[in-house]
């Protein structure tokens, strides 16, 4: 029994809980899911816990790239990003894995994590029923306990226990597996890591693009980065200009339409 590793594994599990989508303790999703839950941030935290900040941040950047366009609007997830980040990056550091392998570990762990997350949402229906009863009685304490405290005990257990065990027992397993698997499999993982952001990007496009003609804006952003400059800050500034032009030209049209009515 390795006491230090167990403590480290537990701390990683704890941060996986604090960064989960329903954890309220760091101002809800603002400090939790969108900050601690991002792989980029998880990489730094895991690096500090395991005593290797540089590797942690490098793996964090790699896993973040695969999850760059992760969105959480109902039913579009294929992987739970917080389980993915904490499980994948931690095992990646502990087994000296390449960034490509860490990405694949994350995707696999995230897929399993999504099952646990959905399980929690089902369990929460029970607490919801109890909130309803407390509401009907005007019982403030009942609302607080059943909306905030009890569901979080379940969420805590569903995050901390599996991640602690996975990190504690997974290290040897992952290292041994990586030693014996053929080079082609590692190459497949690396290729997949590069392809995955395409899925997230497509989901965002589906959210943003309402008419096919708007694809032209996507193409403009794409060729800007591919041909002109690799700076997202520069692109954002140009995109702001174009969005402003679209806004001011469309207000002109609407004003004219209203004039005609009058």
């Amino acid at each position: 029994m390795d006491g230090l590793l167990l403590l480290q594994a537990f701390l990683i599990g704890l941060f996986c809980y604090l960064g989960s989508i329903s954890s309220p303790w760091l101002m809800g999703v603002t400090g939790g899911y969108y900050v601690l839950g991002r792989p980029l941030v998880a990489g730094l935290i895991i690096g500090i816990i395991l005593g290797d900040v540089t590797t942690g941040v490098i793996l964090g950047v790699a896993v973040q790239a695969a999850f760059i366009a992760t969105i959480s609007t109902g039913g579009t997830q294929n992987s739970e990003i917080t389980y993915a980040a904490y499980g994948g990056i931690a095992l990646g550091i502990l087994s000296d894995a390449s960034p490509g392998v860490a990405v694949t570990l994350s995707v696999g762990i995230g897929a399993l994590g999504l099952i646990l997350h959905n399980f929690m949402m089902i369990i929460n229906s029970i607490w919801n029923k109890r909130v309803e009863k407390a509401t009907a009685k005007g019982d403030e304490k009942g609302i607080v306990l059943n909306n905030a405290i009890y569901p979080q005990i379940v969420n805590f257990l569903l995050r901390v226990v599996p991640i602690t065990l996975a990190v504690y027992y997974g290290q040897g397993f992952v290292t041994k597996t990586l030693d014996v698997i053929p080079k082609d499999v590692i190459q497949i993982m690396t290729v997949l890591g590069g392809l995955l952001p395409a899925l997230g990007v497509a989901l965002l496009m589906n959210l943003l693009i309402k008419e096919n003609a708007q694809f032209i804006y996507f193409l403009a952003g794409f060729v800007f980065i591919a041909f002109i400059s690799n700076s997202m800050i520069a692109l954002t500034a140009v995109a702001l200009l174009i969005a402003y032009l679209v806004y001011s030209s469309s207000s002109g049209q609407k004003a004219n339409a209203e004039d005609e009515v009058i």
Partner: protein
Amino acid sequence: MVKLDKKDLRKSWRTWAMYHLSSMSFEKLEANGFAHSMVPILKKLYKDNPEEYKKALIRHSVFYNTEPQSGSIVNGIVASMEEERANGKEITDEMIHSVKTGLMGPIAGMGDSIIQGIVIPVLLSIGMGISSNGNPLGVIVYMVGFLATILSLSYVLYMRGYQLGISAVDGLIGINSEKLRNAFAVLGTMVVGGLAASFVNINTILKIPNGEESIDFQKTIDGFFPKLLPLLAVLLCWYLISKRKWSATKILILLICISIAGVLLNVF
């Protein structure tokens, strides 16, 4: 005449900002979080009237779901409507319900596209650029940048919603806000195009035989359209999602199959 003071409003905002999803389930999502955030408001307004207090809590426990951080404006608006109602103004249950259900859709659409579609990916790419060699500074830039922007936005929107009350609704779903939404969609779509070119990464190792020697096919592509393969990968996924209605999981499996086939056939 009961009046809400700054302390009640702050407490209500903080409760919403923390507990919006704490008991999320498939059928209720943020419903209980909304009711929970109304507790400090309703307790003050109906402290001498337990029957009205109960009714008000039940009123706020119906299904509710929006983008929670920008959605705090709805909680502010509803707090001001509850205050007017408690002071005898004619505000019916239906009015409160229709404000909530009428706003949650447009605000979710706009909030998700701006926060998840623009703010987070742009801040992340800035942070990742600084941190790509393992320097933790980029991570800190992301954390501070996001928290400062979004926490203040959420707080300001709640207080603004309370000040404007029901009159805020027209501004939020009128013609003007639709134009604003369209403009943000343009901004978001361009940024997402840039993200695709930055982060989707696929190169071929195919070689074209050319007499004695051979030419790298990737070099040929780079010569006329760098990142053409990533663009094609994105277009394929987008087509399958938007036109064929494939689920994300199905596409993930397809991408795994493409990776396996591509490596085994010596394409990637």
